[in-house]
């Protein structure tokens, strides 16, 4: 995997479009699309049952399900889940605050842009996951490194999108605000910030994707709690079933946050023509 995580998640999403209409109109899912995933799952199960796929390389799907139930029942899963969620939340809060603040400063003022944009653009070219060795030297292998890593992953996409969102607000609307006698604070509140919101939400989605990626990498380096710990600990005991459970949890968390942002988009961008 390339560590330049910016490349991983900058999907070519042009805008935060509300869920395309054809999606909601198509009520009946195409059942044919389930054939190959189920076949693959069955093949995996068969390979495991016949011994073609040894359990110390990859456990069978059924074993994974049972392991999931087991760690859920012991409370291990819930603990790990909460620790990881806490790390992402803390890192996200810090990264979002910094990214949005710098984006607003650079977006609103020419001086702000001249001062803020060059260093941010330079730092952005660094693959931030590659900074882990430095972070370990600076912050040790405790919580700080993981949180800073997440914060960094969050800050850049938010900065870029808030900045360009503000810069691309329709000048005609800003001028209409002036003609209506708006003060500059009113122009900011009624015109500029709402105008920058769609692009900001695109940034939010990218940054949340990177937040999980940063967390996974951070927890793999070292962790004494959290989903990453669950996985690494299971690896020590060749419990590939628990490893897969951990991966599924990561995937579910990523999907859940993405769904949350989509919901937010649909509510906040209601005004867009359907």
């Amino acid at each position: 995997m390339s560590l330049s995580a910016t490349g991983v998640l900058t999907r070519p999403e042009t805008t935060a479009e509300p869920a395309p209409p054809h999606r909601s109109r198509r009520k009946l899912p195409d059942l044919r699309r389930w054939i190959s995933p189920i076949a693959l799952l069955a093949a995996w199960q068969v390979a495991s049952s016949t011994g073609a796929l040894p359990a110390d390389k990859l456990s069978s799907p059924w074993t994974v399900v049972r392991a999931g139930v087991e760690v859920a029942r012991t409370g291990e899963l819930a603990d790990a889940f909460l620790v990881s969620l806490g790390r992402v939340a803390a890192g996200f809060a810090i990264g979002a605050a910094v990214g949005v603040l710098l984006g607003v400063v650079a977006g609103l003022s020419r001086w702000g842009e001249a001062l803020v944009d060059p260093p941010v653009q330079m730092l952005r070219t660094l693959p931030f996951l590659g900074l882990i060795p430095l972070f370990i030297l600076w912050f040790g292998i405790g919580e700080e490194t993981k949180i800073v890593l997440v914060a960094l992953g969050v800050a850049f996409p938010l900065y870029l999108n808030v900045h360009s969102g503000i810069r691309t607000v329709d000048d005609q609307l800003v001028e209409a605000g002036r003609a209506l006698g708006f003060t500059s604070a009113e122009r900011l509140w009624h015109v500029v910030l709402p105008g920058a919101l769609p692009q900001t939400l695109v940034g939010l989605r990218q940054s949340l994707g990177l937040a999980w990626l940063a967390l996974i990498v951070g927890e793999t380096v070292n962790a004494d709690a959290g989903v990453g710990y669950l996985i690494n600990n299971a690896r020590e005991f060749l419990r590939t079933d628990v490893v897969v459970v951990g991966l599924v949890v990561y995937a579910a968390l990523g999907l859940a946050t993405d769904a949350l942002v989509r919901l937010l988009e649909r509510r906040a961008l209601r005004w867009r023509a359907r």
Partner: protein
Amino acid sequence: MASPVNAPVVAVAGLTKRFGSRTVLDGLELTIGRGEFVALLGRSGSGKSTLLRVLAGLDADTEGRADVHGTVSVAFQQPRLLPWRVVWRNVVLGLRRGTSSQARNRELAERALDEVQLAEHADDWPLTLSGGEAQRVSLARALVREPDLLLLDEPFGALDALTRIAMHRLVEDLWRRHRPAVLLVTHDVDEALLLADRILVLDEGAILSEHVLGHPRPRKPTDHIDVRAKVLGDLGVTESAVA
């Protein structure tokens, strides 16, 4: 701003505006009385939009005098509604906040929307409106401020012909009811002949000619057919091209 009743709303003298080395307005003189409907015609680049922007307070950095006594509202060629505010909130955007309650604002907006026959769209999003509807909301937004001067910058330019005819009637009707002074910037001679008390032809940043229209309203397109030829002549359209 208190001002005597019969003082002019607009008093412009020696107004000059330069963009770099280009002089767009060149010592322009203009007076508009209270409640007067003035149409400003001119070829592209004659400076008519610049004059309107100066009067709207959107273009500073001018020489000379450009005094406007009273409140000003503008309706642009594009409606310029804020897409993230429902229609009625767009209408009251220009009212000073804090001076009136939410309920009062809503009431004012509904009354203004009723005047442009859009009361049922009060809670709609602007992007769901047609071009003509959005332009009518823009008019309501301008008029709800009870302006002494209403600046119209080619507000019908982007509309289809049928909608434009309906809009002419509406503007005339609203003008008669509210009696703001109006400065209508347009390049449509017939529109000016239909609506205005006075037509000014602008050329190279100064008033080239003035035509007073005395025909009672509502007018037919054939009224002032004599003025039409003169105005077209001032605009540099030859007789053969008119015929």
